[in-house]
């Protein structure tokens, strides 16, 4: 009888230990493309945060990752694959803000929670959205840019390099830029050039625009990940010059990638608003932990939007925790 009791107690203890161990939770991560440092950093930070936050919460995050090479149809099929693998949560950065709606609905039908990451769906609400506040990002940059040109007594005639028009962040940035500058009386946008996020179009679009508008003296970049292409274009038209030089083109940019940090330190780019890869990833994992524990995500109206910070030539070396600065 005594032996039987001991065996039963041992069995119960083993069961209790098993339930106390971290439970596996599989996240299906769908990238639209891995075409610059941001997705690479996001993924790196998500996985490291998954480990840190997961351990603290008793969740063992496992990852299934796929990439759609900027093809919305392939992304839909990649997400379908994740649903068929019965992952516990899908996190997707959409290639197309409209097309992702069908994937969100399919995941909902399969009872799989869905986090849209970085790029919101235009039409369908996911479980929660986590990303940067791209409208606020461009607004912050544009307001600072208008103030800067006003202070320097410059009448800005700008070329706008837009992103992909199927990317809601690109649309938001363009909208905010125009809302601030069109009525500013200081900055006028002479031409908006769509780049489809293709660095080659950043280059040729800039050259074409400056040929069409030789009096242009400023630019707004929807992202500075392709700054080397813009630099090459400006060099070819003799307008890559530091602030203070008569040929200087005033540049307001978005994201503040490593290339932009250096260009800002060297005096070529004037201001930009950061896109905080670490904060985005951390927030996404915080929401994933809540979902894994069976709790409700806690973003206001289902949107967790992380604001960027204004980076200028004056503060680029001192602003704290700038992921793209070499010392980070």
């Amino acid at each position, binding site marked *: 009888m005594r032996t039987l009791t001991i065996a039963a107690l041992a069995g119960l203890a083993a069961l209790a230990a098993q339930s106390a161990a971290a439970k596996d939770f599989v996240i299906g991560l769908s990238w639209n*493309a*891995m*075409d*610059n*440092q941001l*997705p*690479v950093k996001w993924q790196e930070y998500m996985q490291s945060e998954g480990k840190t936050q997961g351990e603290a919460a008793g969740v063992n995050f496992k990852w299934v990752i796929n*990439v759609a*090479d900027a093809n919305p149809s392939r992304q839909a099929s990649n997400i379908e694959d994740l649903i068929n693998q019965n992952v516990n949560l899908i996190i997707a950065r959409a290639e197309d803000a409209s097309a992702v709606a069908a994937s969100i609905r399919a995941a909902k039908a399969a009872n799989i929670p869905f986090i849209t990451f970085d790029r919101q769906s235009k039409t369908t609400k996911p479980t929660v959205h986590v990303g940067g506040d791209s409208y606020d990002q461009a607004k912050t940059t544009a307001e600072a840019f208008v103030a800067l040109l006003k202070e320097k007594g410059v009448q800005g005639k700008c070329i706008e390099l837009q992103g992909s*028009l199927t990317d809601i962040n690109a649309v938001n940035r363009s909208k905010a830029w125009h809302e601030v500058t069109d009525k500013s009386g200081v900055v006028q946008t002479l*031409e*908006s*050039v*769509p780049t489809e*996020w*293709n*660095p*080659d179009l*950043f*280059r*040729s*679009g800039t*050259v*074409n*625009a400056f*040929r*069409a508008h*030789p009096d242009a003296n400023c630019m707004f970049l929807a992202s500075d*990940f*392709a700054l*080397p*292409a813009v*630099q*090459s274009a400006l*060099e*070819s038209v003799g307008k890559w010059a530091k602030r203070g030089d008569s040929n200087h083109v005033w540049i307001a940019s978005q994201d503040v990638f490593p*290339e932009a940090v250096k260009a800002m330190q060297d005096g070529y780019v004037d201001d930009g608003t950061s896109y905080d890869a670490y904060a985005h990833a951390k927030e996404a994992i915080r929401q994933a932990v809540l979902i894994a524990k069976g709790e409700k995500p806690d973003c206001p109206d289902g949107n967790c939007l992380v604001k960027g910070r204004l980076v200028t030539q004056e503060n680029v070396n001192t602003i704290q925790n700038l992921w793209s600065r070499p010392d980070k």
Partner: protein
Amino acid sequence: MTAIAQGTLGHWFTRNGFLLIVIALFLFFSIVTQHFASVANVLAMAHTMAPLVIIASGLALVVFTGKLDISVGSIAFLSSAIAVLLMHDAGVNAPLAFLAALVTGALLGALNGFVVVFLGINPLIATLGSMIALRGVALQLTNAILIALPESVRGLGNATIGGVFVDVIIAAVILIVVHVLHRRTVFGRRLDAIGNGEDNAIRIGIPVPQTVFLSFVASGFLASVGGLIGLLQVGAISSYLGKGMEFTAVAAIVVGGVSLFGGRGTILPGVLLGAFAFTMIANGLNQMSADPYAYKLVTGGLIFIAMYVDALRTRRLRRIPIRPPAQAAS
């Protein structure tokens, strides 16, 4: 439908219509925009189209044989990626890294040629496979991120001699060499002969497998040259390098009057005009601040017209019903 008789307006149009369209478009953009016809802008267009004309001229050598190589964009990407990684990660000096890229391009072209000629796989399918696989390898090697060129070589893309971009001069030399190769050498005549009928070419003793193989090697080599020039222009490698270039190059070739059925067309002025047309449309619409989607519509329309004219010509020459290009390419 009857074939178009020689000496008629229709016949003249099928021979020279495209040149007229290019001239008309040039005049149109010159009138509606202020700076389109400036010397600086024409030089900028030549600069932009340099990678395209080089890649298209190499691809044309394959198309003359009635075959197709749709992996040129991926070869451009992979060979350029190798050059960048050699410089960036291994500290190899630029000339050696560029040489490695050119050798890579030729080898990848040889691989395509081997698969098509010696394994007998349909060129469209074979190069579709290499297009996907080679891009995958390049994405993996570069981690799909944008890598800026070292400062020591970054300025080469904008280097000029007497106000003309160096890459424009390189493109012009390559165009002339490829044109001479096509029109003035035994190799060039063999390409056309194979395109006009492979069975007949074999019967008259043309070494068809070797000639087709060499055309793929040349195509791969020139794809890597075009890739390097594109890389130097942008100043960084990104996953967009060469993306869609295969289709733009095919379009430039077809619009320039090279038949996808093989055996007909010219490098000069054909391929040059075709590439210029696409670059001019992008530049002109850009200067007009046209709707971004207008470019796709206009270029699509241009390709359609060119294909139709090509089909008309082929019917006139061969007096046979039009065959779908996919069959002709096999």
